[in-house]
């Protein structure tokens, strides 16, 4: 666009305020959290004084050492990654047929079908968790049915609520739209001529899917996987509400450190590790996606 007289001033006038706000209320807090991870916990929570009575400055890597030497924390990270991976796979299986159906339907229905996928995402997060408390509750039809079937085989009744099962079902539930959207965006751009050509050459439906549609959809799959996996890694409300005692994930650990134990430095270390894991994964997904996309940028 053509440059006008005092564009420099105009540029700062409109980009300055939002920039300043985000520097103060996003960048600074993040930086402070990084600094807090190198401090000692205070006697009554929070941080220890920066300079103690003997004049020593409080800067150390104790919390990092603790993270890497006590295996329990690593185990929680592995467990969280496992839950997130399971969620991603189940979402992919549910989303693929849905996304291909939307991509194939006529223009008129397409927007409505897509809207129907997105709408639940806009309902309150807690309400969506609460819904599963009702469905999986001990008095609800589902639990009674499952336990009646189990009783036929002489098995002990199992609780559905407050279990890993409940956590996983709800994780899939809240994540599904994030898998459908990028998949749809990819599948919508596929050229049907390729499939017709394959069919003319004698490929059956199964071959057409695995040799053409699926490989072409990989960028969408990676994008969806990143959008599902990363938020699932840091979730805390779902295991907090629906999980049993064994369902402590990274998010719960972080919440504990800040609101219960009040060990800020260690909580900060956990948060930083979570961020690094998320960034690493997002970077990898973007890299694979770009490489996989190659010339057929879809």
């Amino acid at each position, binding site marked *: 666009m053509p440059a006008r007289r005092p564009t420099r001033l105009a540029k700062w006038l*409109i*980009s300055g305020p939002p920039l300043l706000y985000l520097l103060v209320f996003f960048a600074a807090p993040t930086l*402070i959290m990084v600094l807090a991870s190198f401090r000692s916990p205070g006697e009554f929570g929070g941080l220890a004084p920066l300079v103690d009575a003997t004049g020593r400055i409080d800067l150390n890597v104790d919390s990092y050492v603790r993270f890497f030497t006590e295996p329990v924390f690593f185990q929680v990270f592995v467990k969280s990654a496992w839950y997130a991976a399971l969620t991603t796979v189940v979402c992919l299986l549910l989303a693929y047929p*849905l996304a291909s159906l939307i991509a194939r339907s006529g223009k008129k229905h397409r927007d409505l079908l897509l809207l129907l996928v997105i709408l639940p995402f806009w*309902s*309150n997060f807690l309400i969506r968790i609460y*819904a599963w408390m009702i469905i999986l509750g001990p008095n609800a039809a589902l639990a009674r049915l499952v336990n009646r079937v189990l009783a036929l085989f002489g098995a002990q009744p199992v609780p559905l609520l407050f279990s890993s099962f409940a956590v996983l079902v709800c994780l899939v539930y809240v994540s599904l739209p994030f898998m459908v*959207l990028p998949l749809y965006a990819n599948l919508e751009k596929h050229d049907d001529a390729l499939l017709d050509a394959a069919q003319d050459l004698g490929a059956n439906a199964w071959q057409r899917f695995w040799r053409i549609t699926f490989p072409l959809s990989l960028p969408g799959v990676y994008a969806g996987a990143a959008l599902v996996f990363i938020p699932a890694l840091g979730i805390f*409300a779902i295991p907090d509400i629906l999980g049993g005692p064994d369902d402590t994930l990274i998010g719960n650990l972080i919440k504990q450190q*800040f609101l219960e134990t009040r060990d800020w430095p260690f909580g900060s270390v956990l948060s930083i590790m979570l961020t690094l894991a998320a960034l690493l994964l997002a970077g990898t997904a973007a890299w694979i996606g770009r490489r996989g996309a190659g010339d057929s940028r879809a």
Partner: protein
Amino acid sequence: MRRGSPWLWASALVAYAFLYLPLLIVVVYSFNDSRLNAEWVGFTLDWYRKLFADGDMISAAGNSLLIGVTASLASTVLGTMAGMAMHRYRLRLLPILILAPIAIPEILTGVSLLIFFVLLNFTLGLMSVALAHIAFCIGFVAIVVRARLAGMDESLTEAARDCGASPGRAFRYVTLPLIMPGVIAGALMAFTLSIDDFVITFFTAGAGTVTLPLQIYSMIKISVTPEVNAVSTLLMLLTLLLIVTAAKLSPTLLRSDRET
């Protein structure tokens, strides 16, 4: 155009049922004449009556409304500026700061703001929650506004300037009316995000301040009661109205694959 096979339709139907049945159950049981959310007994409006007589709930709703209005107004102004700046200039830092709060896990924004406010001796309460909400809403508004600008003819603003309008007048009388649907859509979206937010609010609200999601959280941590169904139903209705209005104003909002 290849048609979907019956198998495809069936699995899509299962997926839609999976998405909607849980929410439908919440709504249906809000009218159920039973304390247990287990089976249908009979129709009643008692849970709604109870809801409107619940002082804690009313004050939580008031707080949510206050925070939502404040956060959406402030983030709409800042987000519109950011969206325009990103559309007009090549910027390095701003796009990163706009996208980062959306991309990283919410809990990180929550805890880092908690440390920030406490270290600054800033009392946790309505104000800290509103400031936190503004921070994460700016990005959403900026994205919607930028999408609107991308579909707009920039030469109109240029023409106004050539005819002698000051930058301020050109914005007020040409650019702003043209991007208004995007701005309003962004504002509605910010309001929805604010009123629905649980995680960031949870960490920045402190002990005394309760918003609707926090109130719902403490209720469902104790027990399942149909009063929660009633408040959930109303909240879903509100969100639905806001989002459908926003989508009407800014169609790109519901087509995440395009432009943005």
